[in-house]
């Protein structure tokens, strides 16, 4: 049996009268790369915050097994801060209150920046960067923190395709080194191509989890996004039999008539 790195049981939460999660349980082995999908408001961010310990769930328990790193979708510094300093903040947990980062911390921060191919942004002001570049910086910050479990809230939301691919490949590499990762996304192909696990949060509070190719069938995806979804087989993809979900109404109609 593989080592369990992230475990939660019976998680439930509500905002006022609105229930967003109910009886959610999950076990992820060490090194898992888990994609979290769901419609807007289905509770993706809430779940990630609960797992990260930012939010106390109304019901259920999280059993953390290591250092948790949370990567928020957006960071809004109130005062000007440099990109390298932002990455450096990832080291804060290891720096006692009256100390400042030392040489090793700067080296780790620079290495993390290089890892996300953003070394050239080191001296830029964080707020002068584009949304996608900021997400790269915040990702680098999580790398600098050297967490055992990474929870990322839509890490690719503002990224162009190059940076999306860079980020997902990086997450896969990190998972291969034994870091357990869970990220939310609105692109099912991210899950099908890169993830080892998938979690679907349906609007009615139910959920499904398992291997992406197995649970992300047309019925589940149509139910998840409330649009007709077809999966089209592309033989050129590396994982044999990977099918790409297509959610455009016109494409679905064209496929059906052919």
């Amino acid at each position, binding site marked *: 049996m593989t080592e369990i790195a992230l475990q939660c049981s019976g998680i439930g939460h509500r905002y006022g009268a609105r229930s967003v999660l109910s009886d959610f349980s999950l076990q992820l082995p060490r090194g898992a790369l888990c994609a979290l999908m769901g419609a807007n408001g289905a509770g993706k961010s809430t779940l990630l915050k609960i797992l*990260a*310990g*930012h939010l106390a769930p109304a019901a259920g328990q999280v059993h953390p097994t290591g250092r*948790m*790193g*949370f990567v*928020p979708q957006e*960071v*809004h*510094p*109130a*005062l*000007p*801060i*440099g990109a390298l*300093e*932002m990455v*450096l*903040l*990832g080291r*804060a*947990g*290891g*720096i006692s*209150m*009256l*100390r*400042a*980062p*030392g*040489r*090793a*911390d700067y080296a780790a921060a620079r290495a993390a920046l290089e890892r996300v191919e953003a070394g050239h942004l080191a001296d830029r002001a964080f707020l002068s960067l584009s949304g996608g570049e900021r997400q790269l910086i915040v990702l680098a*910050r999580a790398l600098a*923190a050297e967490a055992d479990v990474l929870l990322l809230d839509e890490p690719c939301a503002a990224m162009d395709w190059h940076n999306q691919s860079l980020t997902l490949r990086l997450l896969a590499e990190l998972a291969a080194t034994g870091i357990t990762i869970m990220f939310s996304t609105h692109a099912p192909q991210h899950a099908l191509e890169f993830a080892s696990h998938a979690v679907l949060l349906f609007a009615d509070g139910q959920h499904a989890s398992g291997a992406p190719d197995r649970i992300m069938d047309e019925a589940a995806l149509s139910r998840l996004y409330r649009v007709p979804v077809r999966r089209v087989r592309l033989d050129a993809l590396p994982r044999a039999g990977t099918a790409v979900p297509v959610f455009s109404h016109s494409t679905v109609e064209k496929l059906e008539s052919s």
Partner: protein
Amino acid sequence: MTSRSIFRPVFRFTPSTLILAIALPVVVVLAMAAGRYAIAPGTVLRILAAPLLGEGDWSPLQQNVVQGVRLPRVLLAAVVGAGLAGAGAALQALFRNPLAEPQLLGVSSGAAFGGVLALLWLGDGWPVVTGALLWGLLSLLAVYWLAGARKGEGGGTVLLVLAGIVVNAVFASGVSLIKVMADPQNQLPAIVFWLMGSLAAADYPRLWLTLPCIGLSLLLLYGMRFHLMALAVGEADARSLGVPVRRVRVLALLAVGVIAASSVAVCGVVGWVGLVVPHLVRMSCGGDHRRFLVNTVLAGAAYLVLVDTLARTLTQMEIPLGALTALFGAPLFAFLIRRLGRSAHD
């Protein structure tokens, strides 16, 4: 190489820090030369160096003016200016608000109330200093208690600002009441003038009282400069990165409170320094945490020495320091706002 000394980065002088570190003593010496009784800067330097180099050809009057009158006043201005600017910089990070300054916390009002109360009942001098210091610290406790910052996760920054507003209002009305009760011939003018802020009463005892209070507080803030920057990025974010948010906030508030109370105690309410100086420094030298606080403290010291020199030399009668810092601070700040607004639209 992995040891992280809190002092090591002090010696990493960057050009901006170096320029400020040279500018400050120059401003201090020039300020001591200026005045109704003008003394050549060279003579000032030689008088200051007398303990090392021996007596020279200056008059006893010159020596008395430099050592007895101007040196404590200029140094007190430097210490208070450094403290107010550093406190402003810390508060702006703490409250994630570029408009925060020491008066926001209500500590200045509390200290002002204590000083005015002492003027009413006990007379001028040390009672005022002690009263201001004690009431300032008391109002810090009140803000803290109101915001519920001692309990668990309470005491968010919004609550602290609200508590500061309440404490401010209570003590401001207290000051008004005392003004009504004061004897309009003698006490009221003294109260009004003291409230406008002045370093005219500067002497060595006041300097020795203020120096350790403000010096230790600034050292504490300097030690926490990295974690204060983390707080400026966001409270929840900082917490998830492992920053001891509550402890940093408590200690920073304590430092800022002590700075605000002790500066009101020795020179009344002097506003705008904590607001203008950090912004000037951020715009001219950048906000890198390794040098930002040091630069701000040096610039704040030079700024208040400069303004206080103008306060005592511009006209026959001394101009209240608080009036001048506001007079210079407000337009300077308006200029900064315009520049910020323009760069935001670009």
